[in-house]
């Protein structure tokens, strides 16, 4: 069995681990995020990107991958109160938004992701 990889435009390959997380965080870019989303049957819209960029900003600022509660509040502060709701994030990213967004945003995989 070959190593899992993400195939990107122009024949570029990015290594993933068994659970579909990036093997090297430095590989992350917007193409990678789009391809990771595509794997989950998601097409990223500007609304998705606003949140993905916000999670990267959260990580830059605090050195943490946000829990849903913190992400909801942070979203409200930066993207407006009407978006600072877990329902909004779930509509965009599905059932466990904080985990999914962190993965798409190329944050370190959480140790307790099972």
């Amino acid at each position, binding site marked *: 069995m070959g190593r899992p990889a993400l195939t990107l435009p122009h024949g570029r390959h990015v290594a993933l681990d068994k659970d579909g997380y990036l093997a090297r965080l430095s590989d992350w870019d917007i193409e990678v995020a789009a391809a990771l989303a595509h794997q989950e049957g998601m097409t990223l819209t500007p609304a998705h990107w606003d949140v993905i960029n916000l999670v990267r900003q*959260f990580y830059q*600022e605090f*050195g*943490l991958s946000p829990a849903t*509660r*913190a992400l909801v*509040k942070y979203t409200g502060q930066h993207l407006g109160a009407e978006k600072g709701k877990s329902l909004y994030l779930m509509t965009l990213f599905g059932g466990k938004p904080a985990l999914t967004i962190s993965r798409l945003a190329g944050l370190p995989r959480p140790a307790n992701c099972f």
Partner: protein
Amino acid sequence: MKTLTFLARSGPYGSSKAKALLDMVLSAAVFEQKIQYIFLDDGVYQLLSDQDSAQLGAKNVSAALPALDLYGVDRIYLDTESLQARGLQSRQLLIPAQPCNSDEIRSLIADSDMVFSL
């Protein structure tokens, strides 16, 4: 809901204790417990602003403290005697913390279901 009190008594970087206690606080916050986070003894060093751990090859453990508010942790206390004993009373702090003394810490502890100190 339980009242959990955390005594942050260790400075950052010299050991993993500051981070270990912070991780407990953040986990308890996710479960929406009533949290009291008290910085005292060497723990007050965690609150100094302008920490830069780049030369250590270590993460800045205090960078996460400003996120506490987003986790709903808003009962944050600072033992002013510990600050004074270390000559830090005039230093700029990373996050707002309610100044307190031993008497007040005693009553915070008396109100707690569980206390964790690192």
